[in-house]
């Protein structure tokens, strides 16, 4: 019984990655379709969370810490991209 439940949970955990494909698709949609540059950039920022989530879930399903390390790296570094995008938007978009 418990084993069955445990197995079911494992299976469900694994399929959570599949579920995450939906927010990923929506985010991509926002990235490509905009309409504004700000919208696209916000969507790109959102990718960080999804990427961390997928990495973490993979770590969970495989039981390997290496994937959590990836999440760790993503969490840290993606911020730079957001900064760059914001800087771009502010400088390109401002009156100057």
């Amino acid at each position, binding site marked *: 019984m418990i084993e069955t439940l445990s197995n079911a949970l494992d299976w469900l955990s694994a399929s959570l990655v599949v579920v995450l494909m939906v927010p990923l698709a929506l985010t991509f949609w926002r990235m490509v379709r905009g309409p504004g540059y700000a919208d696209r950039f916000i969507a790109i920022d959102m990718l960080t969370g999804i990427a961390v989530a997928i990495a973490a879930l*993979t770590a969970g*399903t*495989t039981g*390997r810490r*290496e*994937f959590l390390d990836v999440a760790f790296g993503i969490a840290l570094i993606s911020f730079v991209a957001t900064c760059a995008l914001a800087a771009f938007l502010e400088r390109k978009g401002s009156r100057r």
Partner: protein
Amino acid sequence: MSLVYALAIAVISACGVYLMLSRHAVRILFGVAVLSAAVNLVILYAGRIVSTVPPVIPGGETALAVEAANPLPQALILTAIVIGFALVAFVAALALRLHRSTGTLDNRALDDAERLGSPFVPTEDRP
């Protein structure tokens, strides 16, 4: 699964080639990036995509598990990613410099190299 990978790689590389056929320097740059990504996937594909286990030897063991992913393509891709990045960065710098120097990135307006010493351009017209 191979079929899906093959299809995706084919589509992505076709898009890369299409972008590279543009006359705009930055689109060409994007083409290089896309085609590079496709080729990286080809390397992964060539090593046979069969496993989700990372090729890291767990503590306490001395050899990689049999079911681990093929590490060699990963190492090759890593090298290729880095090289691709370096090239993209250089071409971006080139594009920026081109724009600063000529005010355009459209290849139809960029003919300084072909005009230099061209027999088909009148002498007094040459830079």
